[in-house]
């Protein structure tokens, strides 16, 4: 036939755009009854979806009425705003309580990601601190959206100005429990098995923007986990709480964060991003075995 299209490509293109078909694709459809049939079905599908869409109530009136009734006004912008890469966070990571427990190393790829910190302009501490500190999340992650909560295996690697965490979830991409890593049964429809992310030291009220998603993260001084939760709930998105023990009193500059007794709580508030990386079961088992040794 001499056309550029085979049926597989034709179907891909038909389903990605039912309206603007190329001349080559139209030629293929003329010669291929099966693809033509699929094209008709694709059009029918789009029409059905459109027709089945639920009606939309009058939200404008109710929103404007509420604004007027409760005298709501736009809040003023925070005084400090910084832009820096934060890295990808898993959708499952809604609440984490992290506790620094032991010294340790930093993963090679995380070292690379720690570059350009000063250039990015985020807060640094002048006090003497270990180059890296391996930490452990001892509380569980409470998922949001698809899937439930559960205990995950997470390690936190802290440098002077940045903390990087790596979490291995105790469920596999297909939603079944990963026996090598977890004891709690899980259900999860998303492909979320592992995440790594970075945490930057932010002063109270300072904002940072993730270069990937443009989401804004706000640093906040809080004195307890409850207060951190309240602070986060007043905003939207994931809440990431870090509890630092007095074992590393110089981890964060006193000028930047309040210290309360033995612990410092920091709340970061931002948005949940899509999780993109999938890891194989073999990789997870290998990871678990390696860490068990």
């Amino acid at each position, binding site marked *: 036939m001499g056309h550029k299209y085979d049926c597989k490509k034709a179907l891909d*293109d038909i389903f990605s755009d039912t309206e603007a078909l190329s001349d080559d694709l139209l030629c293929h459809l003329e010669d291929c009854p099966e693809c033509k049939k699929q094209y008709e079905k694709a059009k029918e599908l789009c029409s059905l*979806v459109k027709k089945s869409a639920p009606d939309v109530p009058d939200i404008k009136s109710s929103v404007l009425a*509420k604004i007027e009734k409760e005298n709501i006004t736009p809040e003023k912008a925070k005084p400090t705003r910084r832009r820096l890469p934060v890295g990808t966070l898993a959708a499952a990571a809604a609440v984490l309580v992290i506790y620094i427990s032991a010294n340790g190393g930093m993963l090679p790829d995380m070292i690379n990601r720690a570059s350009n910190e000063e250039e990015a302009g985020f807060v640094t501490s002048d006090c003497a601190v270990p180059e890296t500190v391996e930490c452990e999340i001892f509380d569980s992650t409470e998922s*949001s959206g698809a899937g439930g909560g559960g205990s995950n295996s997470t390690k936190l690697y802290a440098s002077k100005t940045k903390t990087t965490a790596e979490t291995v979830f105790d469920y596999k991409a297909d939603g079944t429990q990963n026996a090598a890593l977890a004891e709690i049964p899980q259900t999860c429809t998303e492909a979320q098995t592992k995440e790594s992310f970075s945490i930057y030291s932010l002063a109270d009220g300072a904002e940072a923007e993730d270069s990937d998603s443009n989401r804004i993260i706000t640093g906040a001084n809080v004195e307890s986990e409850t207060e951190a939760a309240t602070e986060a709930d007043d905003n939207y998105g994931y809440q990431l709480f870090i509890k630092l023990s007095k074992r590393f009193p110089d981890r964060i500059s006193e000028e930047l964060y309040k210290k309360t007794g033995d612990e410092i709580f920091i709340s970061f508030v931002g948005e949940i991003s899509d999780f993109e990386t999938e890891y194989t079961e073999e990789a997870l088992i290998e990871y678990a075995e390696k860490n068990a040794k």
Partner: protein
Amino acid sequence: MAIFSREKDKQALKLSEDAELVKKTINGDASAFGGLVEKYSSFVYRTIFFDLRCHEDAEDISQEVFIKAYKSLASFRYDSEFSTWLFRICKNTVYDHLRKQTRTKTLSVYDMGDGEDDKEFEFADTDGEYQPEKAYISKETSRLVNDAIRELSEEHRDVIILRDIEEKSYSEIADILSIEEGTVKSRLSRARASLKKKLSAKAIL
């Protein structure tokens, strides 16, 4: 670094219509915000509806999304699209809602009965004459189609809603979802293929 170059680009960009409305709102013109709500209420409501499977919750959460957006307008950065920003607020509000629902162990969002769909559809033919049998088939078909959309993964569901229901352009969808236009097309192709499979299994297609 790339993240700083956008800052420079921002200054050269002409403000979009949405950005103008945002500015007017911040300067005290609440009716300008009405324009934004009017423009995006359908997209916000339907996105939430397909996430939550409940009209009442979708209406409440939609209102919450716009109030949050209104309060936070000062933090809107003009170098991204308003729709992108709003979409993230929308999704995060839904996640928060689902998380709270999980915490309090209230009725599962997956247990919503058919009654939830009752007000979705009008049951009249083109002449405006009520036809019970036709109406039932139409309602049932729509319910099955919406159920199938809900069964899709979130990223497939979002792209179907934005393209096939809200009729956004590929470029707009790319902006809203913060992905490349090519990714929008390939994702849409997979989403539609998956939806077609589900509807074929239900003998609708």
